[in-house]
């Protein structure tokens, strides 16, 4: 399997040398374009972010206009549904005509789908825009939460964990977990995190673990029965101390990052969190946040990852899905995606490979008053192995959800 993938990758690299025209006019791609016309692509994607929902609407309109592909956004709240839907279909033997054609996925859900053989591909090297504009050797795109991607998913945005606060209310935000604990004790009820079943909530715990753990290297290997308790013990000690001082005394949690943004806007808490360094700027622009809201990161840096797109093995519109993914990787779609007033997600394109006109457009993007530049964000901390996330979620529920 891996050998085949390597061969294809090599072929892809060779292809990329021929430039844009060659890839887009290849016979294979034309066949795919032909087959895609008239297909309906059901895209299961987390629907918690209004900006992304609207962006997907725009993509749907363009996909229909340009390629005759009907794109429908199947909105989900809990990304675990990405796996359960297709897995349930596989267990009852529905190997064709599955209900989903495109997934917005990463991390533990990608790992689960890959393990269960639920993904179509490798397909990324067939996408002209991936071949032309994406640096396929970037470690952020070759591995997803340490799991090799193997061409089964294409990146479409980069995310980095950031904290959001209102500088008019909070002069100096806490920039380490020790400071955060001190802040929470001094200001009871003014801090919280999204509930742990939500990826934002579990990422917060991982961020804490990152700072608290003695030897980080252990996080990049699967969590084991014999080391999980020992490694995470300081995390739970820290959390036990924090919990009574949380918003609602730690008995309620906002459902998601955007829900916590609403709490910040209402003045219920002083700090919110997001996976988009541009989100605060976008929310200032649309009136939800006051103009004094700012973004910051922890002193040790913050966790970052890439968002990916994948195709279920039993999709009935694989070509349509590939067309949509390819369109999402076009400089135009990526540029709109990075615009904080539209979506605000870091592009995955390699600026060096872009045509001049687009490189300029990207450079001219106004990132907004509350955004951090890539320099300020610094290099993101890589995601731990997905098993840590799964176990942390379970352990949290064992400890606090009874």
């Amino acid at each position: 399997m891996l050998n085949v993938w390597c061969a294809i990758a090599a072929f892809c690299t060779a292809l990329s040398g021929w430039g844009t025209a060659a890839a887009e006019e290849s016979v294979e791609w034309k066949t795919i374009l032909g087959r895609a016309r008239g297909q309906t692509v059901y895209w299961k994607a987390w629907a918690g972010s209004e900006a992304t929902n609207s962006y997907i609407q725009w993509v749907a309109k363009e996909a229909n206009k340009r390629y005759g592909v009907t794109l429908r956004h199947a909105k989900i709240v809990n990304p675990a549904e990405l796996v359960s839907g297709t897995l349930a279909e596989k267990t009852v033997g529905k190997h064709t005509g599955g209900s989903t054609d495109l997934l917005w996925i990463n991390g533990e859900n990608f790992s689960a789908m890959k393990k269960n053989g639920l993904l179509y591909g490798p397909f990324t090297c067939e996408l002209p825009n991936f071949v032309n504009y994406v640096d396929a050797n970037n470690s952020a795109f070759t591995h997803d939460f340490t799991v090799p991607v193997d061409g089964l998913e294409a990146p479409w945005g980069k995310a980095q964990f950031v904290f959001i606060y209102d500088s008019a209310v909070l002069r100096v935000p806490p920039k380490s977990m020790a400071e955060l604990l001190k802040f929470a004790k001094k200001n009871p009820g003014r801090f919280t995190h999204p509930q742990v079943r939500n990826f934002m909530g579990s990422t917060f715990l991982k961020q804490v673990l990152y700072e608290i753990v003695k030897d980080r290297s252990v996080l990049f290997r699967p969590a084991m029965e014999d080391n999980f308790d020992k490694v995470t013990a300081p995390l739970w000690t820290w959390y036990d101390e924090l919990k009574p001082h949380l918003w609602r005394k730690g008995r309620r949690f906002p459902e998601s990052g955007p829900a916590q943004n609403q709490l910040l806007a209402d003045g219920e808490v002083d700090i919110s969190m997001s996976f988009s360094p541009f989100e605060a700027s976008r929310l200032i622009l649309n009136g939800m946040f006051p103009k004094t809201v700012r973004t910051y990161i922890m002193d040790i840096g913050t966790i970052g990852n890439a968002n990916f797109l994948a195709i279920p093995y039993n999709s009935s519109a694989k070509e349509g899905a590939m067309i949509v993914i390819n369109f999402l990787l076009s400089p135009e779609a990526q540029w709109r995606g990075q615009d904080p007033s539209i979506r605000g997600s870091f592009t995955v394109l390699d600026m060096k490979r872009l045509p001049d006109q687009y490189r300029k457009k990207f450079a001219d993007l106004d990132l907004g008053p509350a955004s951090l530049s890539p320099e300020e964000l610094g290099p993101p901390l890589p995601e731990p192995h997905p098993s840590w996330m799964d176990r942390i979620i379970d352990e949290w529920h064992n400890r606090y959800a009874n």
Partner: protein
Amino acid sequence: MAQSLRQLVVSKAESRFSLLRLAPFLTLCVFLAPVVAGLAATILPALGFHPALNRYDIGLKCLLQFFSLPGAGRSLQLTIWTGFLATALAFGLAMLFSASFCHTRFFRCAQCLLSPLLAMPHSALAIGLVFLLAPSGWIFRLASGALGITRPPNVITVQDDWGLSFVFAVLLKAVPYLTLMTTAALGQVQPARSLALARAMGYGVFGAWIRTVFPRIYPLIRLPVYAVLAFSMSVVDVALVMAPSNPPTLSVFVLRLFNSKDLAMQLPGAAGALVLFLIVVGSIGLWRVGEILVARVGRRIYSSGRRGGSGTVSRSLAAGIMIMLLLFSFSALMVLALWSLADWWRFPDAFPHAFTLTTWTRHIGAVGRPAFVTFVTGISAVLVSLALVLLCLENEDRMGSINRSRTLLLLYIPLLVPQMAFLFGTQVLFIRLGIVGGWIGLIWAHVLFVLPYVFLSLADPWRSLDTRYRRSALCLGASPWKVFFRVKLPMLLKPMSVACAIGFAVSAGEYLPTVFAGAGRFATLTTEAVTLASGGDRRVLAVYVFLQAVMPLAVYLMAIVLPGWMHRHRAGML
């Protein structure tokens, strides 16, 4: 003469209308088969039999595993407590209100307001209620000046540990529902004379009603009360919005297990669904036992001779509570409208900073598709249900046999069995039939819940239509079908359109059937609203929820206006 005529019609019917005779059977298959098959397909994995996952070890292991999950016990307690509390309160309030105000103008006025309230999806009301009651909600914004606060208080109002806000959200619709059911039942028992007699003997308003009317109407509203009990124990969408989430109510707990990425969790999930089913059945049984006990104790109190007060206190209490419930419901709708039009609206401002149509214009495109799906699904489910119900009723007329109690019980099955307990199994059935994620499966799943309401609201007007119209038409030489189309349908246009409106409202408000039968491919306004309710921009959520609430309301108003317009030249039909 009438007898022989009926014989004639019946024999004719037997020879010619075999399709019609199949109607009741067909109806039962359409709406009971998925429930029964779904239950079976849930119970088997609950007992450990799940061939697709290679599990054949039948036993109680999955049940034990379910109970060992963190939060399962608390979730169970929460479900039972909120279920009984909501039902008892809804029932008590509906009785108090009917007793205090039956046959008054206030009653008729409230009734006019209650019916449209029932048309609004429950989840829409619940979301609107959050906008009102949350610490950052409208009530605290309005009161902030008086309370002297500039930040939302750090208290739990919605999603409280005891599930009280959830119970309140259930009451908002359960009380109007039971009140209207009681009104319908009152029509059958003619309470005026017995009430007058009791009053003449010196009993107070409430005392007279509870002694002479209540014992006669209770059997008529027993099934609706059970439906409320089953509903409050098994509802998913309202619980997602209003009930605590760590742990949640049992139905939400089970839904999470079914959605887990570890498919093995489907077994304890199915076990949880089975537990929910047993809890609901057991609770209905317990309620029945309670009925018997209350009847025993009640008999003693009845014959004690005490006349009771004049009823002024109970009257003002009933009026106050009813007005409060109505006020909350309509303010919920209003706060949704305000948010959808808000430019921005910071705490503690009482009103938005400015009004704008931006949110509407930006999202009207995205709302179009779910609005379309809601409309098409609702209309189709209503039409299918209406056709089946009409055929059943027509068959009943021609066969001359009515078996009310048995059909009634069967009709209530989809309303009494928790949706969570069979929809998972129904989905498996639909996958096998290859109709999951398609229009047919979606509409079928909706018919299960629409059909009982269409039947219930149409059966009485249909059966009370004066049979002499039919007989006269037959004697004039019209064929039975001609009588059906030219006499009965036009005369029953009004109840039919009301039945359709109710059916549409039921369909528009359904959450779980759309989720399961739609396989994520279909989104209605209700599923979108519940999805978006988990967080994000209130202004956008308000657009969805406002539309969700208003669409069935519009259909309902149309159902009232349309027959009048069609019969505008026939004063006697209005």
